[in-house]
């Protein structure tokens, strides 16, 4: 009877998608282990959350207090240490999100239980937990075993499991907040929205996404011309923004924008999952990359394995010809 705990993630009053993925995954695991799935809700005015969450878990443990309105790893940790010690779940699931990354490693260390991060698969056999993780820029997968324990913790990468509707009716258990103030040494102040730029890449039908393969800022002119010939807009991967070659509002991916153009041409982009997360829903994806093993080719519809400095100008010319 291995019970599973899944942490509910919400932001600005909305439950985040990862929550339903975690609950779906947790539910499937309990179907095998015979245990119960408990969702943990730390928040404020939580009725709006529990109403929709009820279907997804056997139980909901709820701590409702203003201090939990916004995420703070310090206050969340205090509450979760209490809850996990009391519930003693076999496994605690947290999203590998900005929230989970801040929370899980310190929380598990405090509880002194084995954990690992960014998992893309979980297998439970008896009292053992075997995980799949990705290493080396997504070019290798690894099976990893957590050291033997009665309780484990992990963060799950978003997209590992598609969220499904639940048909459960969770019993709700409210508990008192064990902490009511944010500590002086770490206080959440506010959210700052991403700046709005002059071009909205989420509205374009054709996007040319450029990555580190472009090598130098000066070479971006070639990509601009190519995009113009296509009647499209230039977007990019994170390193291009990190280098200040393009503004942040052009970045596609988990920490940038999610786009759904009719056509996405990835030029010199390796296809890290954080990038894929932002463009996988494009109708058609064409990737140009000199590395035949680049993960981007697992997402693309069409692949060109060649030097982008040869292909892009040639393709631009063909498009120009065709338009005449």
């Amino acid at each position: 009877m291995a019970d599973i705990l899944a942490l509910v993630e919400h932001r600005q009053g909305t439950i985040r998608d990862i929550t339903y993925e975690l609950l779906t995954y947790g539910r499937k695991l309990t179907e095998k282990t015979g245990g119960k799935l408990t969702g943990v809700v730390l928040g404020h005015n939580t009725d709006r959350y529990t109403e929709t969450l009820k279907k997804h878990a056997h139980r909901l443990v709820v701590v409702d207090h203003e201090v939990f309105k916004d995420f703070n790893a310090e206050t969340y940790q205090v509450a979760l240490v209490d809850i996990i010690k009391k519930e003693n779940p076999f496994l605690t699931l947290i999203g590998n999100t900005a929230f989970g990354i801040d929370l899980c490693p310190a929380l598990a260390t405090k509880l002194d239980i084995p954990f690992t991060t960014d998992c893309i698969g979980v297998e439970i056999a008896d009292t053992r937990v075997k995980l799949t993780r990705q290493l080396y820029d997504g070019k290798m997968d690894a099976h990893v075993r957590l050291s033997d324990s009665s309780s484990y913790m992990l963060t799950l990468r978003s997209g590992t499991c598609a969220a499904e509707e639940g048909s459960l009716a969770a019993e709700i258990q409210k508990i008192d907040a064990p902490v009511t103030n944010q500590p002086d040494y770490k206080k959440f102040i506010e959210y700052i929205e991403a700046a709005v730029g002059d071009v909205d890449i989420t509205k374009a039908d054709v996007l040319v996404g450029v990555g580190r393969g472009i090598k130098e800022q000066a070479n971006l002119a070639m990509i601009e011309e190519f995009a113009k010939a296509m009647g499209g807009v230039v977007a990019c991967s994170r390193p291009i923004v990190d280098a200040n070659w393009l503004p942040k509002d052009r970045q596609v991916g988990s920490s940038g924008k999610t786009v759904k153009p009719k056509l996405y041409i990835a030029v010199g982009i390796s296809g890290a999952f954080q990038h894929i997360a932002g463009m996988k829903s494009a109708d058609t994806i064409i990737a140009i990359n000199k590395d035949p093993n680049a993960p981007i080719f697992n997402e693309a519809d069409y692949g060109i394995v060649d030097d982008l400095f040869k292909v892009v100008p040639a393709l631009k010319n063909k498009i120009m010809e065709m338009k005449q």
Partner: protein
Amino acid sequence: MELIVCIKRVPQTAEAEVKIDDSGKDIVKDRLTFDMNEADSYALEEAILLKEKFGGAITAVSLGTAEAEDTLRIALAKGADNAIRIKAEEFGELDGYKTAMIIKEAIKDLKFDAIFTGCMATDDSYYQVGPVLAETLGVPHATLVSKIELTDKKVHVNRELEGGLIEHLEMSLPAVFAVQTGINEPRYASLIAIRRAAAKEIKVLGKDDIASEPKLNSTLEELFVPPVGKRAEFLTGTADEVSARTAEIIKEKGLI
């Protein structure tokens, strides 16, 4: 200010062919190039910027094999004052937790106002070392840090969330900051500085200097090539032929 920066030397695999070695648990490394982990150059730069503004000293720490000393020398050339290498070869298998615990032992006698790490290392993608180090040292942490502003008594810290949303926190020192890429513009080391750094002493610590060997949280059982997903239809031929075919596909879709 006393500042510590954790630096990992990692293989550069984004453009390389990556193969599994005979043990089945590691990759073939002899033909790969190695460099400072990307986020760590941003972490180091952030420490150097603070030192330039408020004075103090920076200690760079790396748990690695002898080659990690080359990476530490780059850190010294850029602006670190001291460097410590902990002999990874004496500790067997490592995970993020064990790494953090070993680093803690190595720095526990150092005073610090802030410790900087990268938000993740590109080889193992753990996102663990910064926050575990903070927890075991009993200080607060922030991960995915995209801005640090120090005022009289407080530090204003931005964390980068999904979709480019920023979380603004107020913290106090000492603290651990796991820095996200793009937070600053890492400087290059000048040739003179690199030459000077070659003569600097790097403190080397081994197992005997660590009170007791920390446990592992996880053990790697095997590496395998990720199962191919929906694989692309590859267009082959000369750049001209490939372009003609691609242009046709784009046209068929009604996009030109």
